[in-house]
C-alpha cells in the first residue's frame, strides 16, 4: 500500500547527493526494552551520507512523523530511514510522511528492528548489534534509491462477491444499495448458505428463514446485482482495481429465464417418490432427480441432476417433466457456459464446512442410527425440513433423553486445535429447542462453556433455568452395550463429570454431536486462484488480525465470514459490512496507488537473448523481433523480479530492488558489525 495523498514532489532533484535522516523508534519498550536505542542512533550518525540521526518513543505517531517531515522541509535530509517495526506494518505510513515532507515516497527505507530483532533476540547486546547491522543496510541502500513517482491505476466500478451465504448476501446488498454493480457467484443452485438450513438463530431465537429469505429475495430483485448460481470462478487475472474474472455456469438443464418455480415438473417426474439422498437435508430425506433444495430457494429454479435422471442415464424416459412445463423451460442440451467480467475488487465469502463426525468413531456416528450431527438436527427442527419440524428418532418415535456432545472435532489435538466459537451457543439453542419440541431431558457435555457475546451469557442462564443438565467433561465414548437393566435399549454416553469427580454413564435415546467449523475442502484451490494465503489450519489469512481484518495481502481481494475463521452470524454480517465498506472506499476513490517495484529493461544493454520473455509468469515482457530487444509492460508487471535475476547482461532491473541496492544491503548487514 502506498501513500494516497495525491501529493507529488515538484522536482526529482536530490539537491546535491543523498543526505539521509535515520530515525530510530523505541516503540515504547518493544524495541527500547532490548535494543540500546542511543547506541544505534550514535552508530547511525557515523555512517556515510547520514545527516541526521534521531530517536523517538513512537515514530508512527503524529509527532514522530512530524520529525521526519520537518527535517525534510528544512532541507536537512532528503532520504529517510526509519528503524522500527516491519515494513509490512508501517512502510506506507512512513512513505506518506516522506512524501508529505516534499520528497518522493520511495526515498525511504525501513529497517525492521522489532519483528526481526528486539522481539526475537534474547540478549540485549546481540540485539543492539543486529539492529546496527539492519540500520547500516538500510542506510547503504537508501543512498542508491532512484527517483520514482507513485503510479496510479484506475479502479473499475463493478465488484465481485464469491459465495452466497449470509456474508456474501449482506456484502452484495450493501454495495448494490450504494449504486455499484455486483456479481454474486454461488456454486450451489441457491444462495442462502448454511444459514438457510437453520430453524432458529441464537441467542434471540429469531427464525432464520424470516430474517434470511427477505435478504435473499432482495438479492434476486436488486437491479444492481447479477446473481450467478450453480457457477464457479475458474480464472482470475489482473490486479487491484482491474481484475478479469472468468466464471463457469454449470448446466441445470432448465432455463433460468423461463422457469417460474411452479414445481409442477417435480410432481410430474416419473419417479413417484424421492429416491436419492437430499443434500440440503443432510441426507435425512430423499429427493427426485429433478428438485429444488428448499421452498424459498433463490433463484426459485429447479435443477436436474444428470447423475440420477433416467433420461440422462438411459435415454429412455417419457419426459413427463417436460410435458408438465407450461413455459418450455427445459433444455436438456444445455452445456457449461462461461462469462468473463471485469471488476475492481473481489470479496471472498466462501464459508466453511462442518467437521466430519465419522473421524471420531468413539462417538458412533454412522454406526448407531440415533447419533446425529448438529446440522442434521437443525434440519429436523426446521419446519421445512424432512420431518416438518419434529424431532424424532430414526424409527419415528420421540426421544425422551437427549445428549449433546460439545467440541466434536474442536479443541482436540487429534483433530482441530481451534475453538469453533459457535458450538457452545448452538448447542444451548438445540437443547432449548429439543426440550421445547419433545419435552425430553437434555444433557449437555462440555469442556468449557464459551458464551462471550451480546446476550449470550444471559441465554446460557435462561437455558440453565429451563432445566437443561450440564455435565462438565469430555465424553469418552458412546456405546449401545448396556451395563445395567436401565441402560438396555439405549445409547449410553460415558463421560467424566469433572465437577463431581466421577465417571458417569448416562443412557439417552438420541446423541447430537456439536461438530466444529472447518475450512472448505477446496479452500487451498480457492486461495491459489485468488492469490491469497491460508493459515496452517486452512482459513484465509487477513492482512492484519486487528487493523486490517477484512483485507488480504493481495490488494483488492477482501474477506467476509467464516472463510477467514469460525464466526457466528452477527460477526459474519458485521465483517461482511466491513468488507463492503472497504471496497466502497476503494471504488469510490476511483484509483489505487500501485507499488513502484516493477521491472524495466535497459535497451542499450539488452542483448536480445529472450531469457526473460519465457520466464515472466504474467506475459509482461514483449520482444521486438526487428530490434531484437525485450521490453516490460509495467502495467502488467507484478514486480517479482524473476526476469531481473535471470538477465545475463544486467539489462533487466527492478525498481526499488536493483542489483546495486541489494548488493548495498548485503554489504550493510555484513560490513559494520
Amino acid at each position, binding site marked *: 500500500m502506498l501513500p494516497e495523498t495525491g501529493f507529488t514532489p515538484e522536482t526529482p532533484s536530490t539537491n546535491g547527493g543523498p543526505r539521509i535522516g535515520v530515525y530510530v523508534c523505541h516503540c515504547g519498550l518493544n524495541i527500547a526494552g532490548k535494543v540500546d536505542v542511543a547506541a544505534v542512533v550514535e552508530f547511525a550518525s557515523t555512517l556515510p551520507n547520514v545527516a541526521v540521526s534521531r530517536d523517538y518513543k513512537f515514530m508512527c505517531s503524529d509527532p514522530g512523523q512530524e520529525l521526519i517531515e520537518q527535517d525534510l522541509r528544512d532541507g536537512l535530509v532528503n532520504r529517510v530511514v526509519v528503524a522500527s517495526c516491519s515494513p509490512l506494518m508501517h512502510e506506507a505510513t512512513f512513505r506518506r510522511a516522506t512524501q508529505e515532507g516534499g520528497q518522493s515516497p520511495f526515498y525511504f527505507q525501513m529497517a525492521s528492528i522489532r519483528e526481526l530483532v528486539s522481539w526475537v533476540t534474547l540478549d540485549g547486546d546481540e540485539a543492539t548489534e543486529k539492529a546496527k547491522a539492519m540500520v547500516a543496510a538500510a542506510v547503504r541502500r537508501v543512498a542508491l534509491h532512484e527517483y520514482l513517482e507513485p503510479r496510479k491505476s484506475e479502479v473499475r466500478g463493478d465488484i465481485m462477491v464469491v459465495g452466497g451465504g449470509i456474508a456474501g448476501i449482506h456484502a452484495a446488498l450493501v454495495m448494490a444499495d450504494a449504486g455499484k454493480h455486483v456479481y454474486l457467484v454461488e456454486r450451489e443452485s441457491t444462495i442462502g448458505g448454511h444459514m438457510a438450513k437453520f430453524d432458529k438463530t441464537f441467542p434471540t431465537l429469531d427464525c432464520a428463514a424470516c430474517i434470511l429469505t427477505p435478504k435473499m429475495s432482495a438479492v434476486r430483485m436488486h437491479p444492481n446485482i447479477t446473481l450467478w448460481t450453480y457457477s464457479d470462478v475458474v480464472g482470475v487475472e489482473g490486479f487491484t482495481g482491474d481484475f478479469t474474472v472468468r466464471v463457469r455456469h454449470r448446466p441445470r438443464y432448465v432455463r433460468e429465464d423461463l422457469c417460474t418455480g411452479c414445481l409442477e415438473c417435480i410432481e410430474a417426474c416419473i419417479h413417484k417418490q424421492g429416491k436419492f439422498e437430499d443434500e440440503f437435508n443432510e441426507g435425512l430425506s430423499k429427493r427426485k432427480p429433478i428438485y429444488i433444495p428448499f421452498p424459498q430457494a433463490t433463484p426459485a429454479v429447479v435443477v436436474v441432476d444428470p447423475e440420477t435422471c433416467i433420461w440422462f442415464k438411459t435415454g429412455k424416459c417419457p419426459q413427463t417433466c417436460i410435458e408438465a412445463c407450461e413455459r418450455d423451460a427445459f433444455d436438456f442440451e444445455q452445456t457449461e457456459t462461461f462469462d468473463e467480467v471485469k471488476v475492481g475488487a473481489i470479496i471472498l465469502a466462501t464459508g466453511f464446512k462442518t467437521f466430519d463426525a465419522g473421524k471420531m468413531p468413539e462417538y458412533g456416528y454412522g454406526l448407531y442410527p440415533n447419533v446425529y450431527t448438529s446440522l442434521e438436527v437443525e434440519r429436523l427442527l426446521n419446519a421445512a425440513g424432512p420431518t416438518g419440524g419434529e424431532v424424532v428418532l430414526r424409527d419415528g418415535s420421540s426421544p425422551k433423553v437427549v445428549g449433546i456432545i460439545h467440541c466434536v472435532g474442536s479443541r482436540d489435538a487429534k483433530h482441530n486445535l481451534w475453538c469453533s466459537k459457535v458450538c457452545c451457543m448452538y448447542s444451548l439453542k438445540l437443547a432449548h429447542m429439543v426440550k421445547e419440541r419433545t419435552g425430553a431431558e437434555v444433557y449437555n457435555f462440555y469442556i468449557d462453556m464459551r458464551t462471550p457475546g451480546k446476550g449470550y451469557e444471559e441465554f446460557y442462564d435462561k437455558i440453565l433455568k429451563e432445566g437443561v443438565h450440564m455435565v462438565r467433561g469430555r465424553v469418552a465414548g458412546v456405546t449401545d452395550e448396556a451395563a445395567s437393566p436401565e441402560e438396555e435399549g439405549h445409547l449410553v454416553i460415558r463421560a467424566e463429570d469433572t465437577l463431581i469427580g466421577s465417571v458417569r454413564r448416562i443412557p439417552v435415546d438420541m446423541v447430537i454431536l456439536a461438530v466444529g467449523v472447518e475450512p472448505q475442502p477446496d479452500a487451498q484451490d480457492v486461495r491459489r486462484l485468488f492469490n491469497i494465503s491460508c493459515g496452517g489450519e486452512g482459513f484465509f489469512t487477513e492482512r492484519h488480525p486487528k487493523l486490517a481484518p477484512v483485507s488480504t495481502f493481495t490488494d483488492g481481494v477482501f474477506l467476509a465470514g467464516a472463510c477467514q475463521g469460525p464466526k457466528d452470524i452477527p460477526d459474519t454480517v458485521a465483517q461482511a459490512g466491513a468488507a463492503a465498506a472497504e471496497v466502497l472506499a476503494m471504488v469510490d476513490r476511483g484509483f489505487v496507488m500501485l507499488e513502484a517495484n516493477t521491472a524495466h529493461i535497459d535497451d542499450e544493454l539488452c542483448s536480445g537473448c529472450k531469457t526473460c520473455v519465457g520466464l515472466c509468469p504474467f506475459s509482461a515482457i514483449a520482444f521486438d523481433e526487428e530490434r531484437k530487444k525485450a521490453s516490460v509492460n509495467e502495467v502488467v508487471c507484478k514486480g517479482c*523480479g524473476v526476469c531481473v535475476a535471470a538477465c545475463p547482461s544486467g539489462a533487466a532491473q527492478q525498481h526499488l530492488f536493483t542489483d546495486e541496492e541489494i548488493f548495498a544491503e*548485503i554489504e550493510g548487514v555484513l560490513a559494520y558489525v
Partner: protein
Amino acid sequence: MSETRGDASTAFEPKIVAFFCNWCTYTAADLAGISRMQYAPNVRAIRLMCSGRVDPQFVLAAFREGADGVLIGGCHPGDCHYQEGNYNARRRFELLRLMLRDLGIEDERIRLEWISASEGDRVQKVCNEMTEQVRALGPLRLETAPKVDGEGAARTPEPSAEALVGQVTS
C-alpha cells in the same frame, strides 16, 4: 561478529545472510517476531519480493563480503505469489550449489527453505539449525586466489570472487 563477544578464536559467531520473499518467509519472520520466538541473532534477513529475485550473484556477494552462510526462504511449491518464482529459485539454487561445491564451499553453508506465512516456528527452527551447522563448520575460507597471500586473503578473496560473479548468472 561484535567486539563485545570476546575472544573470536574461542567463540566463533557465524554471519548468515538471509533472503526472504515478501509474501511467505518474510511474513513468517514477522510472525516469529509477533510470537516472540527467540532465535540466533546471526541471521540477517534481506527482504525481496520473491525468492525468484535471488540472483546467484547475491549469494556470491554475500560470501565475498564475509558471510559464512546464506539462507534463502520462499513460498512452498505451488504457493508462489508470482505463480512460479520459487521454482526458478530452486533451479538456480541447485546449479549454484554445484558450483559452490567446486569452490570448496560446503553444502551446509547455503540453504533453500520453503516457509509459508503461517510458519513462524519454522523460521525460528531453520535459523537456529543453520547457525549451529555453520558454527560447527567454522568460518568460511574461500580458496586463496593465486596472487594474494596470508590469512587476510581468506576473508577478502576479492579477485577470485569477482571472477566468480562474472561467471554466474541464471
